Structures are given as structure tokens and as C-alpha cells.
């Protein structure tokens, strides 16, 4: 279902394989942007290959939006450059924007216009003879085209943003937090639209602060933190590193420090008061049997969220170095 166009590439420093650099659709090259009090980004380098869905992950304020705005030539780099469709986006800004569909993470629309009027205006600015896929996409997203934007809910506004990014069948889609405000059903409809765009030869660059959200559609992901690129990897490789976070609270004495050493796929992350937090990858059985020897009050386990996975990755990267 999910198209994977490249063999898994698990090199942590960006998967910058020289064979693929020449035909990358987007190349971010040593990109740095510093401004005012905001953090910006520092020395980012990565490529987006034609036909892939590239997830751009990081906590809020990490520099995702700054990177995206540099890509769209809305702001200008302090150093480095972004090359898209073979030329510097500073130099061929209009051409890049003609071939790109963009959804802002801080979407603002004309309050007095209806979605259909937005479509007409943007179609005119793009020099299109008609509304492209506009009406079809609106139907898929269950969006009414003729109510003024000011009367729309947050979710419906987001649908308008998606519509405006997609209606002209762009070769490259740049989407900043696209599912914000969408209910789960609509998120599925949106991902289906994305898959169709990719099957049709499109390339997608989307940002998110939640890995769980991206992992179902993305081929590769990059993670950024505090303005720096932390890793670029395939989703396959990341999944293999993912773990379940298990928190066990005990009534009596805590198990000794070495109690969980040597269990396969189990690693102790931290302990506080009467709670021990463990990372589990692989089958749960050995851990369950080990825990059974102590008086367990509560047992809480959940899929590690993005923060856990990346924190863990950063930690192990640090150990390796």
C-alpha cells in the first residue's frame, strides 16, 4: 500500500548517497538561518528524492517551519541554499512555486471569501484555466465550497488549506503540519489523497511533531531539534528501533538495580519513587515473567512517542561517539 521507492538506507548522518544526490528533487545544502530572537536552523543538509514521501519531524519550535519557509523562498538563508527542480530557489523562485503546492503551518485565509473564491483567485494567480482538482478534492474532504471562510471551523479551514495546496496537481507538495485540526476520518481521507498524488508521480515533504502521524505515509523521515538535523532515516529502520515504554509501580520494595539486566529486549530507562520505567523491544514475555516476582501495583505500557524514540536515539548516538 505504501510505495517504497528506495532500498532502506539506515545511515544516521542523512542517507546522503552520492548516487542519488544528482537527481534529488529538493536538496537542502548547509542551510543556516539566524534571525532576531528566534532560533532558526543551523547547517541543515538533506535531500528529498523524486516520488518519495519525506517526513520532517521535530518538536514545536525546532525549526521545521523555518526550513519550509526557506524552501518556498518566503525567507532568505543566512548561509547555504535550497535547490529544487535543479536550481536555487532564490534564483528560480517563481518556477519552483509554480510546481509546488504549499500548506502553511500557520494557515490564514481571506475571511470574506468562500473556499470556491479562494480557488478561483489562486487558479488565476497560477494561470490555470479552471479549478483543477478543486471540486473533486472538496467532495473527498466533505468541504462545502460556498460558505465564507469566517463561518468555517478550524478543521474546515484546514481542509481549505489542503485543497489550495493540492488543487493544481503540483509535482512537489510542501505541507506544514497538514493534519492539524482534522478528525481521524478526515486524516485518512487526506492520506489517501497524498498517496494518489505520489502514485501520480508527485513528491511530498511534510512536517509533523508526531512520528505516529507520519510513519504510515512516509518513506523516510528527518528529525530536527533545536535547529539542527538529528537524523535522516527510512521509516523501516526507525520502526526497528522503536520500543514500548513500560512503567511498573511496585507496592513493596523496588526490584534491585540489576533485576532486569540480561533480559532480551529490555532496558531500564529510569526509576523514580516506586516506579521503574523500562524500554521493551520484542516480545513481552521475558519482562512479564521477571516482573511477576515482585509485587506490582500498576503496569502501564504504551507505544513510545516520538520524543521517546528520538531521545533514545540521541542517547545511543551519543554513547556510540
Amino acid at each position: 500500500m505504501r510505495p517504497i521507492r528506495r532500498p532502506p538506507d539506515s545511515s544516521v548522518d542523512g542517507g546522503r548517497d552520492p548516487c542519488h544526490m544528482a537527481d534529488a528533487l529538493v536538496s537542502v545544502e548547509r542551510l543556516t538561518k539566524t534571525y532576531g530572537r528566534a532560533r532558526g536552523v543551523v547547517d541543515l543538509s538533506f535531500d528529498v528524492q523524486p516520488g518519495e514521501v519525506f517526513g520532517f519531524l521535530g518538536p514545536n519550535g525546532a525549526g521545521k517551519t523555518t526550513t519550509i519557509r526557506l524552501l518556498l523562498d518566503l525567507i532568505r538563508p543566512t548561509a547555504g541554499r535550497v535547490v529544487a527542480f535543479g536550481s536555487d530557489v532564490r534564483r528560480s523562485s517563481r518556477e519552483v512555486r509554480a510546481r509546488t503546492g504549499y500548506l502553511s503551518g500557520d494557515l490564514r485565509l481571506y475571511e470574506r471569501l468562500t473556499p470556491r473564491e479562494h480557488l478561483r483567485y489562486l487558479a488565476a494567480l497560477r494561470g490555470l484555466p479552471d479549478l483543477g482538482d478543486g471540486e473533486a478534492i472538496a467532495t473527498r474532504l466533505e468541504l462545502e465550497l460556498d460558505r465564507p471562510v469566517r463561518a468555517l471551523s478550524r478543521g474546515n479551514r484546514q481542509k481549505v488549506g489542503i485543497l489550495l495546496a493540492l488543487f493544481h496537481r503540483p509535482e512537489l507538495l510542501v505541507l506544514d503540519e497538514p493534519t492539524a485540526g482534522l478528525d481521524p476520518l478526515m486524516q485518512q481521507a487526506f492520506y489517501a489523497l497524498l498517496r494518489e498524488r505520489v502514485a501520480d508521480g508527485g513528491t511530498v515533504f511534510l512536517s509533523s511533531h508526531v512520528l505516529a502521524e507520519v510513519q504510515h505515509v512516509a518513506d523516510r523521515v528527518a528529525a530536527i531539534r533545536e535547529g539542527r538535523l538529528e537524523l535522516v532515516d527510512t521509516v523501516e529502520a526507525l520502526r526497528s528501533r522503536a520500543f514500548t515504554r513500560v512503567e511498573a509501580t511496585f507496592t513493596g520494595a523496588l526490584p534491585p538495580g540489576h533485576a532486569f539486566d540480561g533480559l532480551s529486549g529490555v532496558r531500564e530507562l529510569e526509576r523514580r519513587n516506586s516506579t521503574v520505567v523500562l524500554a521493551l523491544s520484542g516480545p513481552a514475555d521475558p519482562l512479564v515473567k521477571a516482573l511477576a516476582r515482585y509485587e506490582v501495583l500498576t503496569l502501564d505500557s504504551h507505544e513510545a512517542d516520538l520524543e521517546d524514540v528520538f531521545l533514545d536515539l540521541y542517547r545511543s548516538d551519543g554513547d556510540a561517539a
Partner: protein
Amino acid sequence: MLRNVAAKTLRDLRRGFLWWSVGLAGMVALMVAVYPTVRDNPALNRFVEQYPDTLKAFIGFGGEVDYTSAAGYLGSELFSFMVPLLLLLAAIGAGARAVAGEEEAGTLELLLSCPVSRRRLVLEKLAALVVETTALGAVLVVSLWVGARAVSMQVSLAHLAAATTSAVLLALAYGAIALLLGAATGRRALTVAVVAALAVAAFLVASLAPLVSVLDVAKEVSPFYHYSASDPLRHGLSAVHALPLLALAAVAGLLAPFALERRDVGVG
């Protein structure tokens, strides 16, 4: 109305245009309606003649202060202050909204995600500003002409048009400066405040010039001086004074695209 940025901008200005038109026409109607009373009351004119020079300096419009002639009355009551005030407010507001307003509303990003060059975008905003201000001038001329005919004022359509054109050029100059400053800073309120302050300063320089010798030299740089200096209600426009206004509008308007071209967009 959604074919391009200029047309969309004019579409957005429709409602405001209606109110500015009502304001201009209403003001003209009121002033013109009072004219017969003033004309037929020589005592009032003698009283005005005794006004201190400072006051006369502010209520004059190019020539002598004279409430009995139609040109003198319209100059003092409308063109010396109220007409430029209203046209400037409309033009500065539109100029500041053009880029800075759209940027603060966040919709500039939507426009710039389309393959429209920044220069083109600002030039279309300039075109909309010119159309809007000229249209307000047309409303003003028509109101004046209708009003003047109604109370048999001795003033020609050509002279009314000349004075209005001068006012439109003045408003365009400040509107273009607002467009430029808005394009450079992205801040609407700041732009309005700075440009309004510039206009007040220029107005004071031009009005006080006859009384203060230092200002008499400085008046040449005041757009308000050139606005009234040729006494357009009596003598029509003169190129010497119209061209500086036109040049100011053109220079500010044509610099504006470059102001936006160079900077980051949407960075609060």
C-alpha cells in the same frame, strides 16, 4: 474581481470606497449649501479679512482668503484642509494595507506561494491604489460640479478638476509612501503613524511658510506647498507644482517593489 491581485485588492476596497464617497459628497453638499448665505453677507467677509495672518495661512488655498468668490470659498472651506485630509486618510490607509495589512493578516504568504513575483504583486497593489484614489477624485469633482451648479457658483469645471487633480496627486504621493514603508516593514499601524506624521509636518511647513522666513525656504520640499501653490481653483494646474507631486508618487511607488523583494516575509 478575482482575476489578479489588483482586481482582488479593488474588490476589498469596495466597501471602504462607498463610505469615503458618501463622506466626500456629504461634506461637499454641506459646504456648498452654506455658500449662498456667506456670499450674501458682506459683513462676514470683512470679519474674515480681519483674521490674524496665522489663521489666514491655514485656511488659504494658494491665493487670497476670500469667502465671497466661489473659488475663495471652496479653497478655504474644502481644499485648504478637509479635502486633502479625507483623500490622504483613504490613500494612506489603502497604501499601508496593500502589503503590510496583507502580511499582518497572514494572507501574503498565500499569495507568495503562487508563482507571482513580489515585484509584480506590489505593482498591482500600486495600480489598485491609483485606481481607488483617482475614483475618489472623480466622486469629488462630480459632487463639486453638481453642487456648484445647484447654487450657481461662479467656478468652471476645469478649475474644479484642476484643484481635485492636485489633491489626488498629493494623496497618491502619500499613499505611495505608505505602500513603500509598508512593503519595507510589514507593519501597518507603524506605517500609518509615520506617514500621517510626515503629512502633518509637511502641512505645517507649507501653511506657516508665509509667516516664518526659515520655512519659506523649506516649503519647496513640502508636498502640501506644491498642492496649493498654483492656486488651481483660479488658475488651473501648473506643471511646476504638479510634477513634483507626480514624481514623489512615482518614485515611492516604484521603489516599493524593491523594498519587498529584498526581505523575509511574515517574520513577526
